[in-house]
């Protein structure tokens, strides 16, 4: 008399099997990320760009975010931002469908059969396919969100520094404009007669919300020094304003040459 083995998945097995599944899936996601990053990520190759987009189809939110940034770059360059192309729209839809409408029914059906009726040859294949389709997105979400937050904090910090530096350069350019006008005016008409000697920085240009400015004149050379009033890192980050670091922007101008800028601290 033949005996049959009960291969239904027991509740006690679920934690161990779930742990193995998560480890295997994490390894798989890392391999897929490595392939995407190294095989299909050449930004100079248009065909590889397409392959990269196709390779990213399981991450529709990343494709949508990429489109937002691409549009911003087009506006930055003065071009009219492009609308979502049919190919990109199809990839986004395919990504959402593969995760929800295709992968999950296969995965859940395989698990239900395994729980209630035991092993069957196609079940393992169904579970793997379902998990690849549904799990690739889900498992990468945790580390991706953490990395994204860290990346944003770094970007905000760097852009804060860049923003304050650009504003100080603009302020110093305005000061150089006033100083050059002074140098060009004859000495008898409140001017320098070809030099910067006697030039006094107008009070409205001595201070902005971000920095203070002072000038040092020696004949045909004027040195403008800008010193911070705020910590530039706090400009775009949520961090409270810290004491201003001792970074400077220095500008050397002459009546005939373009301003020459030098930087210290993280302005370099």
């Amino acid at each position, binding site marked *: 008399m033949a005996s049959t083995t009960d291969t239904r998945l027991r*509740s006690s097995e*679920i934690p161990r099997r779930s742990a193995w599944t998560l480890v295997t899936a994490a390894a798989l996601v890392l391999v897929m990320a490595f392939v995407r990053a190294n095989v299909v990520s050449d930004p100079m190759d248009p065909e590889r760009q397409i392959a990269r987009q196709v390779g990213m189809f399981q991450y*529709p*939110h*990343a494709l*949508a975010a*990429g489109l*937002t*940034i691409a*549009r*911003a*770059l087009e*506006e*930055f*360059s*003065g071009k009219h931002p492009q*609308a*979502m192309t049919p190919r990109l*729209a199809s990839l*986004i*839809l395919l990504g*959402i*469908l593969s*995760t*929800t*409408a*295709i992968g*999950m*029914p*296969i995965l*859940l*059906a395989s*698990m*239900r*059969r395994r*729980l*209630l009726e035991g092993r069957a040859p196609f079940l393992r294949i169904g579970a793997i396919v379902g998990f690849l389709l549904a799990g690739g*997105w*889900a498992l990468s*979400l945790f580390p*991706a*969100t953490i990395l*994204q*937050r860290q990346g*944003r904090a770094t*970007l905000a910090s760097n*852009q804060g520094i*860049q*923003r304050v530096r*650009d*504003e100080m350069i*603009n302020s110093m*350019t*305005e000061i150089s*404009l006033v100083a*050059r*006008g*002074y140098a*060009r*005016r004859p000495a008898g008409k409140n001017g320098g007669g070809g030099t910067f000697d006697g030039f006094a920085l107008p009070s409205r240009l001595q201070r902005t919300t971000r920095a203070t400015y002072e000038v040092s004149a020696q004949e045909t050379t004027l040195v403008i020094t800008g010193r911070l009033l705020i910590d530039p890192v706090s400009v775009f980050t949520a961090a409270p304003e810290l004491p201003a670091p001792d970074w400077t922007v220095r500008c050397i101008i002459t009546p005939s040459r373009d301003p020459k800028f030098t930087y210290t601290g993280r302005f370099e």
Partner: protein
Amino acid sequence: MASPTITIEISREIAVVLVWILAGVIIIGGTFIASYDAVDHWATVNATSLAGALYLGALTGAFLRPPVSNRVRLAGLAFLAALMATGAYGWRSMEETSRWQRGLLLDIRSTIGRGILMRTILPTLEAVEESIPRRHGSTSLGRRFLDVHPGAVVGSNFRTPEWKGDSVQFVVTELSDTAVTVTGIDIARGWDSDFRNVAGRTGLIQTWYRLTKEGISYGIDN
């Protein structure tokens, strides 16, 4: 004579899965098509994701129904809830971050644009200022300006683009014996989205530079 038929036998189980897949494709695909907006793509993506989330809830409830044990069903629903919560947080986070990056890029472009206008317009007026003899009687600034920049016409751009895509323009907005005003415009986002610049476009940066006998002054309109 009866036409030949083909009969495909599939198990009830597989048929149920196929029906669920078909229903998901119709519901989610239909939501995507109905909410499609090529300009505001996030509205389309978010609406489709919401439809997907609702479909997943129904799907999970159907496949974890009895005789699956209560313990397994609760564990499955809890896992789904955690997955959806994390998914929603990650999704919203990515949307918010990408929009923030876009605003930042446009902000940087505005700062750079105003700096470029200052550094390129000033030499045009300084050249006029330097051409005025130190000991002069009355010199018409407007005439001096036209000597230095022949062909400049009030109300139009007198700057020649230096590269393909060069969007900076210099428009003479005042030309008299005592004052010359040059207004600089560029394709970069200004502070006020309703501000109309001298070229008739709205929301873009604009600065002005005025040469008088006292020197050069400047201001930012947008």
